[in-house]
């Protein structure tokens, strides 16, 4: 079962988020840190823009040949002694992992951070089968204790402050002495490290995602800074990779090209601390590593996006730069988006995966400022794709009646330029006359959405088009 979306309530979610002072304090960290660090890392690498072009072209090439790459990748995994499972849907993917765990009598699973596992609702499926899934990324561990979903694709607990983490550890780690000082973040990290180390060593199965799947070698690649995903795939006796089908890259060379833009775009690091390449199970002579290696390839709606106007979204390498630079994300945080993927990439991907009828608010929650596109390492035209969703929403009569009739009225005039010019100059003239004394309006008919929170400035008299025309004549 896919995680239950609250995206249809986006407006209520956003209102609540704006009034949440703790959340607003935490979001302050996003507004500064990520943006400055990315700019600095990109600025220090002269080849960065060329690498973005290369990354875009590579992703497009893979998507155009995805069927063949999937077959080639599968053949290499099998040749290295691994197993490949295919899942059409979230339910099918969960069933595969649950069955793997049950058949091996597994009681606990150590998980590296994986967004696709959030998408398919894997933890809940494992819990229903009586198997404990432990998130091992510090941020994921914190939100798992709180029973929350991640609010950011690479910084899952970015909506929390240090005191929230301390309170949660005190609540759950009941063995902690009351006088243990947890005021410093170092103490919180040490507590989580000790607790999770035991969980790693006890786990029967390690589940990780994959940043890339390499067709040349049948290798799965993950990047982490903590080393948690890496321990998840070396300590337990079974390693299960869950990955969506578009994660394929042709060769190790292609993976390195993407790695160069991934960390810089995500956290402003030149390279994440750990990039781990796993190929098959441990070899006969190896003294550690898992005895079994499984890959679950998940479609869950991707194959339908190919060849559509949303295909470019499948270039995404999940760096999070778009949300780090998004004024809407900065204002409301990730939970308001109501499903797994927030920010601009979520506003495009979520309607594709759960339906525009449920997630239509998300592509509307954008000012189209274009910052997301300007920082995207694979140059996804996110505003254009959001606009496509707005068009679909309009075509399918999902947008509210007032908006539809307003747009209809505007379209009537827009198609008749002479009438448009006449109507706007009449309206501007009238508004200019009416607002002459104060120079602004505290309220206007049909514009209460604007005037509720700020004044509307009175026009100066002539329309832009009229002024432009006059200027052109003069020069």
């Amino acid at each position: 079962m896919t995680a239950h979306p609250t995206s249809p309530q986006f407006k209520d979610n956003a209102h609540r988020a704006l009034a949440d002072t703790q959340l607003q304090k935490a979001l302050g960290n996003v507004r500064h840190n990520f943006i400055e660090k990315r700019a600095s890392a990109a600025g220090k690498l002269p080849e960065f823009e060329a690498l973005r072009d290369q990354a875009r072209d590579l992703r497009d090439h893979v998507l155009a040949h995805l069927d063949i790459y999937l077959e080639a990748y599968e053949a290499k995994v099998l040749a290295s002694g691994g197993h490949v499972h295919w899942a059409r849907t979230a339910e099918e993917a969960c069933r595969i992992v649950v069955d793997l765990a049950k058949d091996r009598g597994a009681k606990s699973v150590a998980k590296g951070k994986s967004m696709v596992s959030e998408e398919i609702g894997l933890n809940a499926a494992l819990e229903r089968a009586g198997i404990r899934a432990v998130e091992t990324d510090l941020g994921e561990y914190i939100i798992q204790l709180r029973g929350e979903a991640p609010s950011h694709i690479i910084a899952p607990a970015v909506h929390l402050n240090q005191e929230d983490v301390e309170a949660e550890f005190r609540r759950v780690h009941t063995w902690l002495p009351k006088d243990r000082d947890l005021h410093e973040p170092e103490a919180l990290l040490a507590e989580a490290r000790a607790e999770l180390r035991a969980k790693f060593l006890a786990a029967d199965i390690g589940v990780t995602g994959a940043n890339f799947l390499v067709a040349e070698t049948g290798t799965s690649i993950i990047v982490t800074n903590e080393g948690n995903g890496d321990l998840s795939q070396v300590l337990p006796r079974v390693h299960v990779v869950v990955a969506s089908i578009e994660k394929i890259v042709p060769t190790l060379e292609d993976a390195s090209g993407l790695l160069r833009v991934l960390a810089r775009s995500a956290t402003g690091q030149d390279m994440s601390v750990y990039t781990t390449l796993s190929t098959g199970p441990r070899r006969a002579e190896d003294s550690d590593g898992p005895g079994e290696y499984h890959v679950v390839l998940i479609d869950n709606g991707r194959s339908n996006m190919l060849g559509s106007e949303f295909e470019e979204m499948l270039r995404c390498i999940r760096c999070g730069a778009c949300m780090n630079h998004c004024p809407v994300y900065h204002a409301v945080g990730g939970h308001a988006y109501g499903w797994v993927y927030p920010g601009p990439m979520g506003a495009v991907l979520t309607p594709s995966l759960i339906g525009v009828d449920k997630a239509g608010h998300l592509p509307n929650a954008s000012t189209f400022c274009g910052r997301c596109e300007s920082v995207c390492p694979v140059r996804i035209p996110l505003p254009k794709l959001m606009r496509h969703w707005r068009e679909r929403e309009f075509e399918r009569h999902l947008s509210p009646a007032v908006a539809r009739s307003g747009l209809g009225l505007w379209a009537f005039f827009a198609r008749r330029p002479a009438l448009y010019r006449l109507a706007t100059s009449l309206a501007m003239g009238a508004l200019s006359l009416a607002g002459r004394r104060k120079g602004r309006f505290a309220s206007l008919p049909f514009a209460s959405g604007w005037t509720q929170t700020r004044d509307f400035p009175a026009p100066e008299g002539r329309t832009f088009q009229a002024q432009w025309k006059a200027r052109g004549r003069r020069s």
Partner: protein
Amino acid sequence: MSARDEILANVRRSLGVSATDAARRANVEGRVQRAAPGVRPLRGQGDEGARVAIFIEQALLVSASVAQVPGLDAVPAEIARYLRAQNLPATLRMGADERLANLPWGETQLSLSTGPSAGDDLNSVSFAEAGVAETGTLALVSGPHNPTTLNFLPDNHIVVLRAGDVEPDYEAVWSRLRARFGKGLMPRTVNLVTGPSRSADIEQKLLLGAHGPRRLHIVLVRG
């Protein structure tokens, strides 16, 4: 229809292609066979001296420490010195790598043990397959010689790297792996390690030693 066949059929339908299109297959096979490098940053290029200098600069930037020694025989003394300076116990765990086993450990007071880690070792040493100048990254390859658990479980990870093994970029590491294991073949695990473990999940404050080692010490062997 199996899930596999249905997914592949759906991909082909969406792309408007057929499964038997030889030109598309040739396109893919050619690209995988060539494994052509793309844009490689100039930063890591240059002769060995330049590469080593950049490697050290980058490694220090990510909070690793680096010591240079004139030859392999000087490695045990340097490790003993490092552990003393950090006020750490004189214990050390390593794999079966003969390049490590044959070093003059008797000249030190270090208490050695061998094999993978079960999580109760404070200090470990590994022999790096290569270094990457571009980002101060270490490439470590799994196997009984240098078990992967030694890269992650101990609190303090020491890595021996020969200056001659410092490559300009990741692509050069892939070439080495192909030369050693064969084209298209890989060891179970390759770890690219760039500094000690860290997390910024609490208010974006950078903290070292999340799940992996708190300290990463690189012993760079000249000559």
